């Protein structure tokens, strides 16, 4: 290899973390395979997802090349912009499938809650970093409010899945920022105490989903149908699965939304327990790498941000697989890097890009 080519290669790979990149690539490849099966060999769908992946890689690479302190500067404006858009959605948003999630900008329609998935942890990490030297309980209270307002708006849309993910990412920042155990305990008690109230705020369909979790059979053709059929798919997969393209639950149309939120049922039916454990291990690998990056991050901002990104990724994976295998209620959370859909793919890769940036820029910052 000539030095010139090496320099160009170095330019592209300088801020890329090998472990994260490798596992993301592997998961995406697996995702394409499963999608091919889940969509009944629909090549248009597979190539569409491939295009999404290329965009996601582009975003990841770009983010990896942005030094973290630039991100810190973007944090507050991004958060405020997101809030503005959420408010606009609440006022003028389009209703699709009974939920007011989209904002029509004339040129294109956007879903501002997706932006908040990254904007909220970014803003909270920025906030704690800024008041690092003088952190008091009051700061935590402010952070909680910063977290609570967008969540409230998103729950109202309603979009329980996204609200859950943002709550998780925000909470992780608070937790990692050293929120007192006593406060956490207090919050937990308050949370449990407010359950009846939360219950009354939930939409009927949301309540139904939670009830269904405890007894899917009570409504086998309604809300219980998803869980029953996906559980059957997982269970019938057995040790090694029915083989790629051979899932009967999948190919006879028993699994609803099998290319998106329920794609894990397809994977699990066709690749069995063995496939599931490999997938869990792969997720753990990328999460473990994220934890290492977090542990070694140079500043509080980068530590909190990296930690939130890693834990949020975990939340995606856990909630999705938990819901498909019937231990969590059905919420709209995709299986990261596997489910069909560009938005989640891009936002997850954006997170990994930031993670890479934090991993590769630390020496520069430290010197």
């Amino acid at each position: 290899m000539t030095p010139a080519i090496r320099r160009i290669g170095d330019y592209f790979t300088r801020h890329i973390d090998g472990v994260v990149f490798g596992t993301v690539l592997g998961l995406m490849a697996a995702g394409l395979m499963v999608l091919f099966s889940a969509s009944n060999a629909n090549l248009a769908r597979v190539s569409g997802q491939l295009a999404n992946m290329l965009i996601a890689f582009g975003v990841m690479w770009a983010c990896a090349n942005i030094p973290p302190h630039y991100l810190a500067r973007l944090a507050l404006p991004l958060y405020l912009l997101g809030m503005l858009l959420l408010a606009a959605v609440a006022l003028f948003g389009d209703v699709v499938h009974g939920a007011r999630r989209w904002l029509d900008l004339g040129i294109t329609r956007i879903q501002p809650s997706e932006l908040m998935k990254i904007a909220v942890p970014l803003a909270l990490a920025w906030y704690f970093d800024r008041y690092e030297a003088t952190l008091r309980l009051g700061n935590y209270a402010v952070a909680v409010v910063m977290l609570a307002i967008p969540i409230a708006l998103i729950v109202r849309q309603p979009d329980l899945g996204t609200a859950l993910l943002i709550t998780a990412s925000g909470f992780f920042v608070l937790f990692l920022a050293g929120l007192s155990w006593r406060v956490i305990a207090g919050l937990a008690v308050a949370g449990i105490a407010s359950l009846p109230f939360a219950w009354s705020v939930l939409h009927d369909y949301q309540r139904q989903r939670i009830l269904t979790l405890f007894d899917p059979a009570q409504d086998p053709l309604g809300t219980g149908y998803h869980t029953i059929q996906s559980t059957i798919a997982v269970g019938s997969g057995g040790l090694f699965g029915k083989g790629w393209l051979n899932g009967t639950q999948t190919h006879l149309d028993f699994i609803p939304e099998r290319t998106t939120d329920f794609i894990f049922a397809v994977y699990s039916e066709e690749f069995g327990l063995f496939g599931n454990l490999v997938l869990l291990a792969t997720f753990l690998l990328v999460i473990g790498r994220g934890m290492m990056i977090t542990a070694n991050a140079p500043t509080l901002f980068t530590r909190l941000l990296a930690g939130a990104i890693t834990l949020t990724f975990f939340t995606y994976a856990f909630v999705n697989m938990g819901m498909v295998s019937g231990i969590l209620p059905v919420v709209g959370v995709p299986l990261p890097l596997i489910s069909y859909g560009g938005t989640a793919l891009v936002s997850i890769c954006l997170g990994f890009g930031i993670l890479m940036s934090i991993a590769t820029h630390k020496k520069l910052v430290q010197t």
Partner: protein
Amino acid sequence: MSVAVELRNSRLEIYHFRLRLAIAAGFMLAMFGLLAARFVYLQVVKHEHYQTLAEANRISIVPIVPNRGIISDRNGVVLAHNYSAYTLEITPDKVDDLERLINELATLVDITPKDRRRFRKLLEESKNFESLPIRTRLSEEEIARFAANRYRFPSVEINARLFRQYPRGELFSHVVGYIGRINQRELDQLEADGLVANYRGTDYIGKTGLEQSYERFLHGTTGVEEVEVDSGGRAVRSISRSPPVSGNNLVLTLDAKLQEVAYRAFGDRRGALVAIEPSTGGVLAFVSKPGFDPNLFVDGIDPQNWNELNSSADRPLVNRALSGTYPPGSTFKPFMALAGLTYGKRTPQQTISDPGYFNFGGHVFHDSRPGGLGTVDMYKSIVKSSDTYYYMLANDMGIDAIAKFMAQFGFGARTGIDVTGEAVGVLPSQEWKMRRFQQKWFAGETISVGIGQGYNAYTPLQLATAIATLANDGVMFRPRIVDYVEDIRTRERTAVEPNPLRTLDIKPEHLAVIKQALIGVNKEGTGARAFAGAGYVSAGKTGTAQVIGVKQGEKYVESRVQEHLRDHALFIAYAPADNPKIALAVIVENSGFGARYAAPIARQVLDYYLLGKEPRPLKRGKDEDDDAGD
């Protein structure tokens, strides 16, 4: 609470942060461990359970209903067959507001109030989640219209189904019978017989007539197809298929044309006629008038038609030939005479003096002919139908001897014909009366039994079997309607063998006397007018029975009481006399003298059967007929 956290010491800060991170890592590992445990539970521990569920999802066992066997007469005239038609079916279980759904459907296909009534009746009768037809026999146009709107009606579907049709309608309604939807009682019976599996997918079962008694032959064997279905229940591909075996065809001994001649010969009278081939027991004609249209029952009869049939004073649903019982009247006399000869109570030449009555212990039994017939021997007693002769004979024989002799001919017992629903009738005896009424027999009651009145009550089928037995020189065959059962695949024919039940203990010379007298009836006696100019020698006996209408749970219908009190006309006959090819019994309810109303019907039937002569409009004799004698 002073919880201001001091984070000045950078190393302490890192330490705290990493502690928290380690806690988070532990939490994530625990959660993934939970997932792994869940996977092991689902995919290893409960794998078989879910495997079974997935298979149950995937595979649907679809029964393939066999074609029902075809019923045809001895000449291949089809009496019951199947045709394919499209039906519009609703699964009521999936519908909230049936009325609204039907109204919406009515905008696409023609749904009459009758269809709605029928559907409601079906709905009441069905408990399961089966689909029920709201309309049958859809036209091409209706199918197209519905197909275009199918998406609006997830609980409604069009199915191609085989329907039973009876092309000869009311002509064979009582003998062929009809099929109808399987009801709960029949389902229980099928369950008890272990036949439920073979009836999966079958909606219909034989309800009456041959359709009922030959159900097991006609139905066939249900096939099974294992199909892979998707979540919408649509068949994706066939996994395995065992084809159905069509039901067997029935070929009858009946002659459709003869049946029609007999049926028409009744005009608008009620009654029954059974014609039998004496040498085999094969039934040639089996008429119960009035009939009804069996096609009405196939899709489930609508309440209006049902009520009409059920409440009609003519009782068209009653199979008179099989389950109507009538006093035989004077048609009983030849059998009485034979009994007298057999038991040595009379000789052919022995005469009595008939003053027109018989006095028994102060009670006078009148002859129907005032003044009587004078000197009467056995021949004359039959030819001219003397009552006094048989009052005396009955008295001389006693009731139990009469019962014993008549039982040989099958009077008062089921003939064992291959249609169910046969009535037993009443052959009176001392024992019978004690059993029935807990009373002793009075000698005076024997007298009227001698002329076929009193407690005597027999079905037209029994009467026909008796005369056929007599015509066949005492060799009695079990009457049968099905000649053979034909396997539709192998074309193998399994005959319902002529079954000689018994040879009666009668001396040929005695039989010859009676036969001679029966020929005399049609030549110079009470049947002579009806059989004048026949191109064959026939034997017959007229009869007139005083009666109280049909005994089948008769309802009091005021407007018809007068007519219902009239006498029944009877006639039994066989021909040709020297080599009988056909024997028959006719009863015409509430019409009057047998010679005048029943004998001409018999003549038409015999003319057609023996000479191929098409019937002419029925001519009735005048009132001042020569034969008031019976």
